[in-house]
């Protein structure tokens, strides 16, 4: 049956004039069709106007009294064990909780369900936000580590290049009492590209760094600063002054992190006398 056929049955349904089977068929359709339900409301209103085609009539005043007596009796029967008796006048009844119909109950349950779903969504959102924030922190950390590793790898590659270059020379630096067990090698090619590779150095205090010195005669010439990693290893790339190429002594001291023009801290490594 098509929709239009159901619609044609609505006016007769409003008159309760459909035969039993037809009414059942239409009721099944109405349970699924909001359009026809809305349309039926209009037809019901139209059918109700037919009541005005009947002549009016006045019922006996006793009917009103019987109705009111009945509802008072029902109200009293509904609260037979109530400890608090409400003294009512002839037109006033104790408050009676109206019966909740099924749609109100469904509405209340729906509101509770909506609140629970909302709370669950809120918790999920907070968890996702925290996970996202943690992931972001982890990503930043990994990115920094990767950057450090890349820089370290780059330095080592340069060190290899310097070591493999023809004419590269090597100087060994040994530890002082400040860093027992530490040692370093300084490789530099004929162009003065130098690479210091140190190990066993203590961690530099905050605000401090190790600085390389080129000592020609008794005059120290400043090199760059570096900080060793957590295992005490440090690599420093530098450009050696030309005057230091042939007759220099090399030393490593602990200085302010920005580096100093002349040594101010203790010597940790040196290359002999």
């Amino acid at each position, binding site marked *: 049956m098509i929709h239009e056929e159901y619609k044609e049955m609505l006016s007769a349904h409003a*008159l309760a*004039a459909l035969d039993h089977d037809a009414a059942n068929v239409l009721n099944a359709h109405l349970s699924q069709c909001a359009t026809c339900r809305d349309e039926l409301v209009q037809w*019901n209103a*139209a059918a109700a106007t037919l009541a005005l085609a009947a002549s009016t009539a006045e019922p006996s005043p006793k009917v009103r009294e019987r109705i009111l007596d009945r509802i008072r009796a029902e*109200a009293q029967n509904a609260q037979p064990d109530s400890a608090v008796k409400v003294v009512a006048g002839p037109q006033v009844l104790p408050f009676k909780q109206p019966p909740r119909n099924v749609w109100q109950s469904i509405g209340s349950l729906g509101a509770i369900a909506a609140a629970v779903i909302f709370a669950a969504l809120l918790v999920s959102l907070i968890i996702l936000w925290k996970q996202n924030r943690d992931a972001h922190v982890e990503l930043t950390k990994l990115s920094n580590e990767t950057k450090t590793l890349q820089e370290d790898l780059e330095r080592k590659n340069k060190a290899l290049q310097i070591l493999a270059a023809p004419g590269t020379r090597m100087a060994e630096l040994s530890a002082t009492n400040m860093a027992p067990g530490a040692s370093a090698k300084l490789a530099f090619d004929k162009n003065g590209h130098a690479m210091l590779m140190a190990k066993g150095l203590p961690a530099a205090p905050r605000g401090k760094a190790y600085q390389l010195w080129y000592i020609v005669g008794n005059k120290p010439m400043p090199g760059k600063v570096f900080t060793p990693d957590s295992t005490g290893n440090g690599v420093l790339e530098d450009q050696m002054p030309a005057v230091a190429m042939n007759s220099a002594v090399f030393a490593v001291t602990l200085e302010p992190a920005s580096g100093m023009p002349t040594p101010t801290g203790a010597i940790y490594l040196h290359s002999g006398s």
Partner: protein
Amino acid sequence: MQPEQAQTTDVELLHAVAHGDERALAHIYDRYRVVLFGLLVRILNSREEAEDVLQEVFLQVWRRAADFDEKRGRPFTWLVTLARSRAIDRLRALASRERVAQAGAREESEQISDAASDTIRAEQRDLVTNALAQLPDEQKRALMLAYFDGLTQSEIATRLGAPLGTVKTRMRAGMTKLRELLANKSESFGF
């Protein structure tokens, strides 16, 4: 004519009834007793039966006022539908006991005209009466048999000796025409 105000008041009264307000029920009774009792007398053709059903109807209003949903119709429609449904049920029960049989030979009961205060409904009554007067007799007859005698389309076809399809067409055409005529003349009917 202030149909909106009256309608709002009826809705408020039914809500109050739903909360156990006995005075609200009394107000609803006072406002609708004449219309509903007239309808019940017309259907049942007996003042005694009509008064009994009228009492049942208002007890049902008292118990089921919380079921009233203004989105699904006006208080007038809800009350009239309730009363008519109860009356038809009673009519069928009486007919099954063969206590009422003379359809078409109805005797008008003692009836009085509308109260002066019920001018709105009197005006609506005139509109309905005039609208019905404009329907072809066969359409009007089909509507009356369905509404006041509680007959189904098949029963009407049998009563009139007309094909079922013809009765369906007459009923649908009559309702459509009635709705159009009333919708054009007043917005107080709720459609």
